[in-house]
């Protein structure tokens, strides 16, 4: 089961556990590198971020997501799998909004491929965010 690419609301502990459960299935993997992006309770001009509201262009997310995976697989031949999950909608401070899960035969490519995937997501995935403050005002990022 692959959940790529979008999920409504925060990325649940259940979804994460599901990915962790199946790590051992591939005994040709020697390393898994996982990135979790979390909503930070930043303070801006005396106001605290209480949540981020994400919106995405779903069709294009799918197109660009596939391109990202293709890039990773061709650049890192030791990589066995890449999972990308991004939240849409409201994600509160302390909750997870991005998960990148990369498995590879050896650790170096797992690490490099995971970092690169996160960078490509930031660059190419059509997702937008609106920071929502504790006084209910908001700021587009």
């Amino acid at each position, binding site marked *: 089961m692959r959940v790529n690419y979008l999920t409504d609301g925060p990325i649940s502990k259940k979804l994460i556990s599901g990915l962790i459960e199946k790590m051992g299935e591939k005994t040709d993997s020697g390393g898994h590198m996982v990135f979790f992006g979390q909503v930070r309770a930043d303070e801006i001009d005396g106001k605290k971020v209480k949540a981020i509201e994400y919106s995405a262009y779903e069709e294009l997310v799918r197109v660009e997501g596939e391109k990202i995976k293709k890039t990773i697989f061709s650049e890192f031949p030791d990589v066995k799998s890449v999972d990308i999950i991004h939240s849409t909608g409201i994600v509160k401070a302390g909750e997870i909004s*991005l998960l990148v899960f990369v498995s590879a035969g050896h650790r170096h490519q797992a690490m490099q491929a995971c970092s690169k995937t996160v960078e490509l997501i930031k660059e190419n995935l059509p997702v937008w965010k609106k920071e929502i403050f504790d006084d209910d005002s908001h700021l587009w990022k």
Partner: protein
Amino acid sequence: MEVKVLFFGVLAEVSGTSFKHYNNVKSIGDLKLRIQDEFPEIVHYNFRISLNSELTDNDLMLKSGDEVALMPPFAGG
């Protein structure tokens, strides 16, 4: 002929809608002028364009049923 235009991120706020249909627009350039006329504030924002889920920088011709998206800089993660 009619094209569908999607507004994302802050542009949905500026235009007050997430999508809108436009009639009789020949090209992306033509469409942009129509949108600027309707929402003058939009000129203050940077955005990229996609046509039918493909990013483009060109002033492509439009046909009926096309979907054009106006997208501010991506901010995922």
